[in-house]
């Protein structure tokens, strides 16, 4: 388990702590703790369906009156979705009835949850029908449109999903999540250049998030060619600028820029393999990346991993090659 902690960042550490606490509380059900955990999960958007369906279900069935109104219903929705994610079908139905009796069948949100239940039950036609009826009433309901895309994706009908998502993005062109989804569709079709377009849109929407620069660089690397390797290096470096390694010692969690370092090493190596001349700054960067990778591995992981990393560096070395 400690290994896992090493590899992931602090958000996950926090949720791990919550989980540990909940599991250790044993028989006695600490509803405050569970509520806080669920709150944290809602905020950080981490997927922990098992945890939520197990403890959250108890929370909303036995302790609902202790939560305040608004949060209670949010929690019920969260628990329903988590239960569906875990393949549970009986409990969500009960909870859904509860919501129906409270808000009536006409509430859009309740209808949407109903459709989700249909989806998990594999009654896709019914689900689609519900979303269509919602869209007829509220033509700009973003969530319903997105769910339609998800249904097609679940069917494996990626072409249709891309089509619907394109139509959606015509309207909501600032939706970062949707652009990411579209890029993932295109990547699964191996059409990297189209995926790059989507990721550029993501970059414009979140210009300070280092993760998306790494994603963009990775896609560039996949496209191949010395030109693309070159710009991949640039984007990796920019992501390092945003998630700066200079403050590494002050962090209370393991660094999250390792993908960028690996990316730099691989891109420079591939560029070299292509026979493309390297700039001096790129050589320096390579040197720095190799050193830093070793330092981080020494600091945060075990010895056999260090050997692996050393081996990786040796095999991608461009300096001492004949």
């Amino acid at each position, binding site marked *: 388990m400690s290994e896992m902690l090493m590899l992931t960042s602090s958000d996950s550490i926090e949720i791990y702590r919550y989980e540990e606490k909940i599991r250790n509380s044993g028989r006695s059900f600490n509803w405050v703790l569970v509520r806080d955990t669920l709150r944290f999960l809602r905020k950080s958007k981490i997927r922990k369906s098992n945890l939520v369906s197990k403890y959250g279900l108890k929370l909303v069935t036995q302790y609902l009156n202790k939560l305040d*109104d*608004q949060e209670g*219903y949010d929690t019920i929705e969260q628990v329903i979705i988590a239960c569906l994610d875990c393949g549970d079908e009986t409990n969500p139905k009960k909870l859904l009835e509860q919501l129906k009796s409270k*808000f009536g069948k006409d*509430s*859009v*949100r309740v209808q*949407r949850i109903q459709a989700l239940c249909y989806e998990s039950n594999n009654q896709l036609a019914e689900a689609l029908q519900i979303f269509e009826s919602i869209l007829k009433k509220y*033509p*700009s*309901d*973003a*969530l319903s449109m997105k769910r339609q895309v998800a249904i097609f994706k679940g069917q494996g009908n990626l072409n249709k999903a891309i089509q619907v998502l394109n139509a959606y993005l015509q*309207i*909501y*062109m*600032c939706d970062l999540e949707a652009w990411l989804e579209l890029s993932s569709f*295109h990547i699964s*079709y*191996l*059409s*990297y*250049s*189209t995926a*790059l*377009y989507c990721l*550029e849109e993501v*970059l*414009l929407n979140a*210009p300070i998030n280092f993760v998306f620069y790494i994603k963009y660089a990775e896609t560039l690397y996949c496209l*191949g*060619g010395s030109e693309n390797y070159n*710009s991949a*290096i*640039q*984007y990796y*470096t*920019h992501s*390092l*600028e945003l998630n*700066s*390694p*200079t403050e590494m010692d002050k962090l209370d969690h393991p660094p999250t820029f390792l993908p960028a370092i690996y990316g730099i090493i691989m891109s420079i190596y591939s560029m*070299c*393999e*292509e*026979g493309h001349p*390297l*700039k*001096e*700054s*790129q*050589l*320096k*960067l390579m*040197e*720095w990346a190799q*050193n830093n990778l070793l330092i981080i591995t020494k600091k945060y992981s075990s010895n056999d991993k260090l050997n692996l990393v050393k081996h990786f560096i040796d095999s991608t070395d461009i*300096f*001492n090659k004949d």
Partner: protein
Amino acid sequence: MTESPIVLDVEIRNWVVIPILIVLFIVSALKLNISKIMQINSGKPQDVEKTMQMQTINRVRRLVSFYNRIPQRSFFIRKSYLCGTTGSKTNKGILSSIAPVQEDSNPMNMMFANSMFTDPSGITDMLKGNIMHLIPQVTMMSWVNHFFSGFVACKLPFFPLTIRFKTFLQRGIEMGSLDVSYVSSLSWYFLCWFGSEGINAILLGDNMVSPDAQFLQSTIESGPPTQQTPIHKIYASEKENIEMIRYDSIMTNIEDRFLDNIQKKTSFDFNQINKNTINNNNNINNIKPKPIKSNLSNSKQSKRISYQKPSSLIK
């Protein structure tokens, strides 16, 4: 200097000061409830077109501010999509897609054209909101003014205030010699009105946003805010903004910049590396004309081709 204090009648406290407080509280509670009813009934109309326009503007603004994050080619693709290609008649760009509405010389008519006819619900919403706030206020003020004017209602405790507060605290009483800490009934009404907002929010907090309304609100985006300037004008100005951009990328020389930063901020030993690279200088020369293994590059090439194929298929 010191005056003998004015003795205020107890009846004033019982029949003026406290009633005003209570009435204010009741009125604000009523106001909240009525506005809630109106909100639910109004059922915000949603307009896909409007949403799209707002999103387009948003996207263009992002492009204008962060264009240097994306490669030059991608920037020009977007530019030609938004502004059209110069000289071409077919591609005018979506920013010029909206024809300007017939402009009228009369500004009043223009305002109507923009707000009334394009979005009549906007005006009714505005009216409703105004009525909700105006009517109770006017009636309350006239009520207070009519019944309780002409005498001092209460005295502020603690310390004396400066003379500047006189107009604020003693509205309705024109008496120069009166100490500032005495408050007239109309001013008392204003004080309570301003002060009670926070308390009402706490006391009526549960009723303020009923969960059902919230349940609906949080799911459906409220329509775009009604706006005054016509959309094609915003489009035109944004188009100008894009055309003014002279592209430059923050990615140029990024490696040098990054390494400089590292050198400045950490104790990372670059001398050693420099030595290494100097030692490797001949290595650099080695690397440049590195013998390309023909089979390797071939396989790479073929790989690349196979990568690009599907994209052309999908298009």
